[in-house]
């Protein structure tokens, strides 16, 4: 018994095991303290809220792995989320319901992908600092979304589209399954695919990667495109959950939540590592802490401070690993 414990302690790597440990602690705490924590309703609420953070955080992880950062994800969410209702509420969609629905999902995501190409080209081909390049859409994207909708709140009733945010598969929220599917695909990409290997090489040592013949520009653009595409999808989910689209609020501050989730999950901001599952875990931890405090009557403002605490802990663990 003691031996198992010592060998566990010896193998404990804060950067890799810190996040799962934190998750277990939060869950245990909730089981003891939070009323109704084991109710299915609790699970559903948390899954539907964590889904958007998780999806964006996984995309962000890829961008950070190249040594970059994407500040525009929140604005891209707003852009996609504002565009979708415009399409499925249009006369065209009234005439062709199915086609209209498909277009309402595909076109906003295509637009998001274009934003990703723009970001990626600025960063890789033109050599603009990622934080500055993505600041362009961070500022203008939401404005564009508000111009599209004249700044109005669009409310709608559209059961098919709302399935994205309220549907259930095998009793669990649809977007929860979506997160798992995306997580599985991205994990495969990072661990097994040639693109994933090249992505980590670019983040690990860009000059060496270039000299080894890796198409550095293409790889970087790819990361930004995937990140923006996922942000677009997350924007659609937010709109579908609320059956309303408010360009001013969709994805507000999402970039910070996504970066926080990625960091908590063990992503290094200097690049070279892309723990997709970690980002997922990070998103869950951030969501659960928020929920725990809220469910126990702690004010929202205090929850923000707690979030900062998690980030500090995550950074501390990363530092500990370096030494």
């Amino acid at each position, binding site marked *: 018994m003691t031996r198992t414990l010592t060998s566990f302690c010896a193998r404990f790597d804060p950067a890799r095991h810190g996040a799962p440990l934190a998750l277990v602690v939060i869950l245990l705490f909730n089981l003891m303290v939070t009323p109704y924590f084991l109710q299915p309703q609790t699970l559903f609420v948390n899954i539907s809220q964590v889904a958007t953070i998780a999806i964006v955080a996984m995309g962000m992880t890829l961008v950070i792995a190249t040594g970059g950062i994407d500040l525009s994800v929140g604005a891209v969410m707003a852009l996609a989320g504002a565009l979708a209702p415009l399409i499925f509420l249009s006369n065209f969609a009234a005439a062709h319901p199915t086609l209209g629905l498909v277009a309402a999902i595909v076109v906003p995501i295509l637009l998001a992908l274009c934003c990703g190409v723009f970001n990626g080209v600025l960063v890789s081909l033109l050599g603009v600092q990622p934080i500055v390049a993505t600041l362009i859409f961070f500022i203008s994207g939401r404005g564009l979304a508000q111009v599209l909708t004249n700044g109005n709140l669009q409310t709608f009733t559209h059961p098919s589209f709302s399935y994205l945010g309220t549907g259930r598969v095998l009793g669990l929220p649809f977007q929860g399954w979506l997160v798992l599917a995306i997580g599985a695909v991205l994990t495969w990409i990072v661990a097994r695919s*040639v693109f994933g290997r090249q992505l*980590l090489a670019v983040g690990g040592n860009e000059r*060496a990667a270039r*000299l080894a*013949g890796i198409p550095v520009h293409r790889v970087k653009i790819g990361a930004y495109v995937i990140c923006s595409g996922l942000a677009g999808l997350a924007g659609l989910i937010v709109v579908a959950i609320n059956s309303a689209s408010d360009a001013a609020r969709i994805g507000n501050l999402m970039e910070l939540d996504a970066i926080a989730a990625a960091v908590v999950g063990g992503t290094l901001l200097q690049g070279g590592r892309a723990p997709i599952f970690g980002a997922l875990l990070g998103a869950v931890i951030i969501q659960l802490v928020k929920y725990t405090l809220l469910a126990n009557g702690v004010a929202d403002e205090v929850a923000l401070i707690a979030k900062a605490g998690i980030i500090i802990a995550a950074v501390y663990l990363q530092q500990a690993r370096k030494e």
Partner: protein
Amino acid sequence: MNALRFLTIGNDMTDLIEMEGIGKTFAGIVALNDARLSIRPGEVHAIIGQNGAGKSTLIKILTGVYRRSAGDVRMNGAPLAISTPREAQDAGIATIYQELSLVPLRSVTENVVMGYEPRTRFGLIDWTAAHARTREILARFGVDIDVTRQLGSYSTAVQQLVAIARAVSLDAKLVIMDEATSSLDDQEIETLFAVINTLKATGVAVLYISHFLDELYRICDRVTIMRDGQTVNTHRVAETTKLGLVSEMLGRDASEIQAAGLTALSGGHGEPGEVLLEATEIRSKTGLRGASFTLRRREIVGLGGLLGSGRTEAARAVFGLDPLTGGTVRLSNGAPLDTPAAAIAMGIGFLTEDRKADGIIPDMSVRENITLAMLPRLKRLGAVDRERERKLVQHYIDALQIKTAGMEQPIRELSGGNQQKVLLARWLALEPEILILDEPTRGVDVGAKFEIQSIIRKQVADGLSVLLISSEFEELVEGADRIVVLQDGRSVTELHNPGVTESALIGAMAHHADAPDTKRSPL
């Protein structure tokens, strides 16, 4: 001045630094075991040894970076307790690192007085006094520069001198120079040597670490040889021979080494085949002004020249890294070379000079580093074919005798020589027609150097063609079938083996050149 008077008294003076029976273990692994070092005031003392012999560990113990596990350190006869680099500085031990620990964006003066700024009556920094003091210190070393300019705007050599000036201004009694000349050109090395002589004349001792044995003979008084974490011996430099030093470093017999030659590149020259690569009058913005050379199958062609003659630039241009502004690079099949990816696809590999910056992906495993350049070939349905990858990697780990705990070990944990072997494996795995080797054995220990050289020789016998750049004349003279000598970005002459001698090469390199030719034949 005191130190000077002591010097005249004779041998029974107190050592400035005395390290006895030093031991150091890292997580159970012994790095140092009974290491000794004694430095007299005002002497230039060298430490030599292979990579992993314990040189840097010993120095880091002296400068307070590491704590020793055993042994005594005394300074002027009194026990020395140093546990941080700052305490070492206060005790008068200054270290000039290869990577400078100064602030390039601040002025020269700020860098020199940092932490010890002269103050005015009101507690503000007295810049007039600070500039004057800095100028005065630099003048002692014959350096006359604008001290108000950013340090980063000066060359590495000047920056190094500023670092030394800072050390002297802090009343250093011992200045440690770690591979100080590795990034300097010949003229700058001369300036550095002059500075070392100045330090010596004022009674400051210098501890000198270098891979270049010839430098030792020029400026060092005594030399301490280390091997496997132990001090083997300390000699007066004047009483040693190069061969003797090498054999003590390697722990091998001198006659054995002499018989084998200084490199493992020589011998086994086959009949060269058809022309594979032809560069004609190539020019670039990076400094090529008309360089021409050809490369045949089964041939090693050396690019000789002083630093800045365009050797590396020519290699980069061939590999498609820097665009040509004139001339042509033609492959036997006529394909254009405009990107590294295109060059790799055409069967060209490029082992770069700067292993850390341009070679390894530090956090990736040995396996991932080896297969980095050949990922497109290992691709199956978008994924890396792991089984083939493992087989291939294991083959090269065995063939090149890469010492690693396993193919999943991060490359950053390997020694320099083994990292270099991994990078060599990266290119050999592509089964290239042409391999460009830029300083293939720089910064690796003698043992690994021999191994790398013989791997290259074997590959050439099997049909590889090599474009070889090396600052180590032995490698060029013994290894290359032909040496194309470059000067100011132009190819000026070509030497053919057999028959090339070091002095012939040096003569060809220096001919017409204004820069003095310092012979640097390192280990």
